[in-house]
């Protein structure tokens, strides 16, 4: 089977959400509508090629770029204020574009999370005012441009790569989209021009047959074991014949195994340093004060912003037996645009967090370094430590052989030393019975001690290796019979769509979630104006009032009252200790002394 045939046999089926307007397509049509720019290290921007002059050939022409320069394509020229105003007058709001295309938002993302996440979200929203972002009108113009490109018929393409590594045959499907409008159209994290997404399938060869084993859907910045699903995991992985089905997030184009809405918690890199401290405080609160010993939940994601991915699959589908068909493009041999162009495929906004910047191509990161999923696809999927089934059998057989050899050697050694020890033991008895032979006895005891120190670790090793050998033999038997483990054993965090029961918030809760943080800021402002002398106390009271109001909406009023009261009690205890520190110390010493005297006297009299 040729590489192209292999790719076609397993090409995924992609199911999009209603309201999505960008689909995987060819790069030629996109590049033809782009201009080429360079952003210099002194922050100046220079247009190198105008729209219409950029081709796959001209893109790769040699250029004198300096350290810190960033080469990038630009799909949409930044509109003028006049242009933006005309658009607003014509279309109304420039965001919420998904709604105009038939997408229905789910329950408010802010209503799904607590105060900390909403505060972080508020800060994130405020930072959008300061940091680089794709201007709102760009999404509208990009949509228009994209529709024009596809006017004569959309070309649904993927770029396929086949590689062979450590026994695995990897099929990588790269999908290119004109634009990612998650933020402007679907209330998501970010927007950026151009989008590259990837799905991998891993197969192996056994007795001249090619057998699929793993599927990997790349999703945002996740890597490792959690990304992949086993081919026979029917609960998690949907298939149409030999074609795995992926549900594509609206706007972001991330791929999911099951349809639904996913609450994505996006970490801000600057806040992750506070995580270890936060976790320690949380652990102390839950175990010591709340005495919640059986139920401590320490998350590695505390300071996060909540977003919702809509991967509903109720829009168009592309792939085998679907309404739209694929046009595969083989990346072998690797074309020049793939290997030689290290620039960005869309607008460079200089966003320090990076969310609004366009991606680089499949081979590179935004900073020009090689992309992990390209240079180490096995590592990216967590398969670098997983042998193919035939190799696993071979390695296990080798391991068992080695262990048996070692066991034989150790047994012989232990036996010899045991005989030696027993001989020493036999010599000891006559010495022990004679008081004048104490010196010789001590010498012999020392010899016995040294020998025991040699034998005990050997026995321990023998025993442990025996257990390993038994387990390995059992596993080998299972593998040879074709008995598989739980297909989800490797997964730490299973990503699941939000259950409908978790999304039952009433309208009031949603409104409160949306306005609470803003109201809090207004409250702080009013305190500073009208109660400057009582700022700290008033702020604390305001925060407590908000927390209690929140808890009413979420049906957790009782729990919140308890938490706050206990917290205030702890503060009061600290105040009392501080105010009466020496009196408390003297009191404790007195009580301790009296108790000890009483106890000891009672013991003495008894």
């Amino acid at each position, binding site marked *: 089977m040729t590489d192209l045939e292999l790719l076609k046999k397993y090409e995924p089926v992609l199911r999009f959400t209603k309201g999505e307007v960008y689909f995987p397509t060819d790069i030629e049509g996109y590049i033809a509508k782009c201009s080429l720019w360079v952003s210099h290290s002194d922050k100046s921007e220079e247009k190198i090629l105008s729209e219409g002059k950029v081709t796959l050939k001209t893109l790769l022409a040699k250029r004198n770029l300096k350290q810190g320069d960033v080469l990038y394509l630009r799909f949409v020229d930044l509109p003028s204020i006049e242009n933006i105003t005309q658009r607003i007058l014509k279309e109304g709001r420039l965001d919420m574009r998904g709604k105009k295309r038939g997408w229905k938002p789910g329950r408010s993302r802010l209503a799904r999370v607590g105060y900390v996440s909403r505060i972080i979200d508020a800060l994130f929203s405020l930072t959008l005012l300061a940091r680089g972002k794709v201007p709102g009108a760009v999404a509208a113009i990009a949509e228009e441009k994209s529709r024009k490109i596809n006017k004569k018929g959309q070309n649904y393409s993927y770029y396929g790569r086949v590689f062979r590594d450590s026994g695995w045959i990897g099929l990588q499907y790269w999908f290119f989209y004109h634009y990612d409008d998650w933020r402007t159209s679907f209330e998501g994290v970010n927007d950026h021009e151009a989008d590259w997404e990837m799905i991998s399938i891993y197969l192996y060869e056994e007795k001249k047959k090619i057998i699929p084993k793993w599927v990997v859907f790349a999703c945002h910045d996740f890597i490792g074991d959690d990304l992949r699903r086993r081919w026979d995991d029917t609960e998690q992985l949907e298939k149409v014949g030999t074609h795995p089905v992926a549900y594509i997030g609206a706007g972001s184009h991330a791929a999911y195994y099951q349809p639904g809405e996913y609450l994505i918690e996006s970490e801000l890199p600057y806040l992750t340093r506070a995580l270890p401290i936060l976790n320690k405080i949380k652990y102390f609160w839950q175990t010591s004060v709340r005495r919640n010993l059986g139920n401590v939940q320490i998350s590695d994601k505390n300071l996060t912003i909540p977003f919702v991915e809509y991967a509903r699959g109720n829009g168009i589908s592309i792939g085998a037996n679907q309404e739209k068909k694929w046009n595969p493009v083989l990346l072998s041999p690797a074309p020049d645009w793939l290997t030689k162009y290290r620039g960005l495929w869309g607008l460079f906004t200089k966003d320090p967090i990076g969310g609004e910047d366009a991606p680089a191509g499949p081979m590179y990161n935004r900073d020009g370094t090689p992309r992990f999923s390209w240079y180490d696809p096995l590592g990216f999927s967590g398969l670098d430590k997983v042998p193919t089934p035939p190799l696993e059998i071979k390695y296990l057989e080798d391991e068992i052989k080695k262990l048996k050899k070692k066991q034989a050697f150790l047994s012989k050694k232990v036996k010899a030393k045991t005989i030696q020890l027993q001989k020493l033991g036999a010599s000891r008895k006559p010495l022990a019975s004679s008081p004048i032979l104490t010196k010789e006895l001590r010498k012999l005891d020392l010899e016995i001690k040294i020998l025991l120190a040699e034998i005990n670790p050997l026995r321990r090793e023998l025993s442990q290796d025996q257990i390993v050998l038994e387990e390995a033999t059992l596993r080998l038997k299972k593998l040879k019979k074709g008995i598989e483990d739980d297909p989800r054993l490797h997964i730490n965090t299973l990503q699941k769509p939000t259950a409908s029961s978790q999304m039952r918030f009433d309208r009031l809760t949603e409104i409160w979630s949306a306005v609470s943080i803003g109201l809090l800021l207004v409250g702080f402002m009013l305190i500073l104006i009208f109660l400057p002398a009582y700022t700290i106390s008033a702020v604390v009271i305001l925060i*407590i009032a908000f927390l209690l109001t929140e808890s009413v909406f979420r049906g957790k009023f*009782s729990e919140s009252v308890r938490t706050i*009261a206990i917290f*205030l009690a702890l503060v*009061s205890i600290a105040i*009392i200790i501080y*105010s009466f520190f020496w009196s408390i110390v003297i009191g404790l010493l007195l009580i301790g002394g009296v108790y000890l005297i009483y106890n000891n006297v009672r013991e003495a009299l008894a």
Partner: protein
Amino acid sequence: MKKKTKVAVENTTLVKKLPLAILIVVLISTLSLVLIAIDLLELFRHLDVPISQIPSSFLSTYKSDEKFIYYIQLFLTSGLLVAGVAATIGLLSLKKWGWTLTMFLVGIGLAINILSFSAGQPTFILMLARIVQAILLDQEPVRSAFEENHDRS
């Protein structure tokens, strides 16, 4: 006759079921209520206005008279007294809302104590009493007693 006996037995059983911790909390609450009642009487005496005329008198002092603050104190103290009585009744009947309301009042009390301390007027005895209440109410057996009763009802 049988019905009355049944109710009497149930009531006796209920009283027997009250954890000691709740009785202590109720005792402290009762003492607090007595102090609040004394404060209320002091306020009434200071204002020197018949109860029926309080609303009209309050409106006339609105923002323009120093007695306005006393009226605010009067309303707040009355509210606390009523809430305190309701909470105590709720505690004794092992009602969940009684537990919540008591804890809520303990929280308010502690907040006032902390503010008084920061203003240089500490009230350590009251603070200590409320700490004891909070700790006792937070005990697992105490909370369970209210949860069981809530589930049963």
